Each structure stands twice: as C-alpha cells, then as structure tokens.
C-alpha cells in the first residue's frame, strides 16, 4: 500500500486534506458553507474544459475556481438564495457535462471529476499541488488574526481598521486555491463533505479556536487516510469512504455535544454572581 505510485497518492492526499481542513475551518466560521457548494460547480466546468482542450486539469480548475469566487464575491451574501444563483450553479454542471461529452472521455471523466480519483494522481501533479498548498499556508499565516476577528465580529474589526472586504477577498482566494487542489482527490460533489464535515465535527469536540483549527486538520487527515486505505483494500472508490466517514464523524460530534451539554448542568445566567458589578 505504500510503494511506488501509492507514495504520490498519500503525499498529495495528505497535503490536500490539511489545506481542506484549514480553509474549511474558516469557511464554517464565516458561515460561507454555500461557497463550498458553489465554487466546486464552477471548477467542474473548468476542469471539463481542460479535459476537452487537452490542457492541464489543475489549470482549468484553478482558472474557473478563481472566476467562481469572484462571481460569489460580486454577488455577495445576497446571492445565496436567488433563483439566478441556483440556475447558474446548475448551468456550470451542465456546461461541464457538455465539455466532457465532446471529449472522448465522457463517462470516466465525469466520474473522476465528480467523485475524485486519488489513485490516478500522477507525479507531475505533486509539485503544483504542494506549491498551491504552500501559497495557501503562507496567506493564512499572514492574515490569521485579522481574519479571525473579521469572521466573528466584522463590525468591530472594521472599527479597528481590519477591512471586512479585504478579509473576504483573502478568504475567497484561499477557497479558490483549496478547491483547485482538492477536486482531483475527492471530486466536486464530495468536497463539501471533507471541507465542511471536518471543521463541523471539530467544533463539537472543543471550545477553543486554535484547537478547533488543529482538530479540523486532524479529522480531515484521518478521514482521507482511512478512505485511501479502505479504497486500496476493497477497490471501492475513495469518494464513497470520504462521504461516509465525514457524515459519520459529523453525526458523532453532534451526538457528543448533545450528550455533554446535558451532563454539564449549565447554570442559568440569572443565578450568576453579579456581586462584582455592584455600582
């Protein structure tokens, strides 16, 4: 399981999972889960286009991910429930299916773009993936603190000079990079499971932001590793395991937080000691 071409697969998948966990953490924090649903649709069309014209898939993914995040940024939060947005998302999928149908690889390409194909990752995708990951990590390290504040309390951030729109732009850039890297591994239909499932589960297990971030990464890594190992031994597709493990992890997290909330009696705020605040 660890020899030859599999080494590539393990490295790429680990790098991808780590970034997905990091960026996914902020996606959930900012309540932008919709973006994790919408951007992959756009990148599907881009990847399909790349397949059609014989270009590098990562390039197609990258360009269309970028266009999609710009589109989302332009539509703003308003776009979420619009009919236009819903129709555009479906149009992207239909466009992708058109491109693929015109290429000679219709069915297999459809399957691998939608559900992932980690075992087919070639060695010349290793370098660009790592480059993208480093770019992501650097951007994140730089804007970590202001992004945290702006994501939780945008107005207070603005008052301190942290521009909410600059942070949104930075976050969208991260999302585009992460999507580009992750689609080849888990596919556009299952990106949501990995990128959102891991942080959503993580927040059930810890209160602290730093720990929740690390836990997101850890859960994403474990998910992908288990999925690859299972896929290798059963020959079943990796996407199946990613989807099920993410769902299971999330439900486990919800069960845990429901359980721990009931066992810790939370005193009502009216009984709190306010003696310290006597004027």
């Amino acid at each position, binding site marked *: 399981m660890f020899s030859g071409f599999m080494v590539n697969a393990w490295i790429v998948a680990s790098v991808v999972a780590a970034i997905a966990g990091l960026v996914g953490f902020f996606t959930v924090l900012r309540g932008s889960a919709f973006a994790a649903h919408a951007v992959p649709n756009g990148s599907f069309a881009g990847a399909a286009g790349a397949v059609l014209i014989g270009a590098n898939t990562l390039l197609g993914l990258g360009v269309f991910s970028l266009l999609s995040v710009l589109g989302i940024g332009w539509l703003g939060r308003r776009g979420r429930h619009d009919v236009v947005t819903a129709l555009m998302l479906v149009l992207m999928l239909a466009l992708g299916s058109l491109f693929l149908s015109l290429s000679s690889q219709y069915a297999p390409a459809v399957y691998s773009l939608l559900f992932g194909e980690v075992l087919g990752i070639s060695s010349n995708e290793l370098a660009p993936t790592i480059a993208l990951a480093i770019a992501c990590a650097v951007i994140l390290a730089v804007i970590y603190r202001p992004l945290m504040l702006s994501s939780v309390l945008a107005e207070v951030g603005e008052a301190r*000079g942290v521009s909410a729109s600059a942070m949104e732009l930075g976050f969208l850039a991260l999302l585009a990079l992460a999507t580009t890297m992750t689609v080849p591994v888990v596919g556009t239909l299952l990106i949501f499971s990995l990128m959102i499932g891991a942080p959503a589960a993580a927040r059930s297990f810890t*209160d*602290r932001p730093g720990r929740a971030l690390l836990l997101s990464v850890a859960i994403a890594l474990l998910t992908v590793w288990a999925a690859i190992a299972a896929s290798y031994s059963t020959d079943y597709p990796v996407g199946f395991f990613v989807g099920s493990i993410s769902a299971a992890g999330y439900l486990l997290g919800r069960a845990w937080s429901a359980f721990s909330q009931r066992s810790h009696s939370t005193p009502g705020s009216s009984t709190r000691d306010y003696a310290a605040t006597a*004027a």
Partner: protein
Amino acid sequence: MSEPGAPSSPRREEVLSLDGVGVRFGARHVLDGVSFQLAAGELTGLIGSNGAGKTTLLRVILGLQRPSAGRVLVDGRPLARRERRIGYVPQKFLLDPDVPMRARDLVALGLDAQRFGVSRPSKAKRELVQQMLEATGASAFADSRVGRLSGGEQQRVLIAHALISRPRLLLLDEPLANLDLRSAQETVGLLARIVREQQVAVLISAHEMNPLLPVMDRIVYLAAGRAASGRAEEVVSSEVLSRLYGQHVDVLNVHGRVLVVAGAGEEADHISGNGVHPPVEIVS
C-alpha cells in the same frame, strides 16, 4: 438627574474633540455643526431618537465616515487609519452558538487582532485577559462558548474585548436597547465602574436617556443633526431643547425621570416618537 449642587470637578484630560463636524448625503444634512469634547474618566450619553444622526456620528468618530465639514481629534491628534485609541462595542452582533470560541478567546483577540501573522501565547497575555474578564464581571462564564451566552453576557465580553487594548475612548452603540430592565441596570452600573477604574472616556448612545441619568457626567443631545452638549441639567431644559428642535418642547421632570413633550401644533408630529412624546393634554 445628577446630584444638584455637586461641585464642578477640575478639568480632566480631553480625549475626544469634535469641532464643527458636519455630514452631508447629497442635499441632506445628517449632521450639522456638531461640536463637543469628551474627557477621560467621564461617562457621556449620546442621546437622540432614531434618525437623529447618532449612528452617523459614531461612524465619524470611528473613522468609518468622513465628515464633509469639521474635524475630529483624539488626544489632540487626528484619527489614524488603524485607530487603536478607540474601543467599540456595536449594537448588533450575531454569534453562532456553535462557534468554537470561548469568551476568554474573544477577549484575547482584542489584544492584537489587527496585527498580521500568528500570535504567540504568553503568561502575561493570559493574566491580562483574566484581569479584564474580572473587571467586566465576565469571569464566571469566561470558558463558555461565546455564542451560547445571553445578550447581556455577550455584551460584557465585547466590552472586555474592547478595553483590553487600553483605548482612550470606549464607544458603545445602543448597549441598553435589547436588554431587559435588570440587565440594563447592571450594564449601566458596570460602565460607571469601568469609567472610574480605568479612567477611560465612555460614550454611550441611546434613544432613551432616563436609564443613564444616574451615571451620566455629560450629555450630547442630538436632534435633527444638531447637537447640544454639556452637563445634563444644563442641556435637558425646555429652553435648550426647544432651540435645538427649532420648535417648542417642554421638559417635564417627574420624580427624577425626564419626559420631553412636544408642544401642540402640526409640526409636533414630525418630532414625536422615541424620546419625544406627542402633545399631552393636561387635565386639571
């Protein structure tokens, strides 16, 4: 009203100074010729009905709105692009109950959130955070998730977050608006204590001045974009307010609570509401 006959205190350090500030949106003057000074260790109420220009004025002070006229000075110097001398507690903030952030973490973020890069935790920082939590009475729920606290508790956390970077001025936008009576009273008491202990200037905006009367050192009363400022008993009088509104209003003092009542007449409708009561028929 503050205690009558209190001796006038010696001039305190001036923290904020507005001089002839005006804001114009197109042909509309939202603010016109607003001038006042805030001093350290003083609690000032920014009173005005909704639409009087309170939010715009706060935005000018925060540097989020450029005034079309006049200037704003903090500690005698103009506003910086990333102003750290002013702390801010907004009126509305939505905190997801599942957000993995404890009250303690949010307060810690107040120390250096605007700096790039990752921060290094240190014992000194932890102690500072603990101190601030205790000063705002938030230490009891410091380790709970911020999104699960009540509105009043969240507000304390936000006050601690704003105070921890030792601002010169603390701005609160309608802090009492969504609180029940008991929580509102506690908040008012807390803010009065903070003003004394931290020697910071505090500006609280509100559309109802009565809850603040016991603790207000000064008042800035906004009506139709114009302001009158000074000690409460000087400003809240029929004369001053009538001049401000541009028509006759009466100020009634009922057992220490103040009622501003519009005089009779058609123009009364324009100013009624949110602090100014419609004309009252006096039954003898």
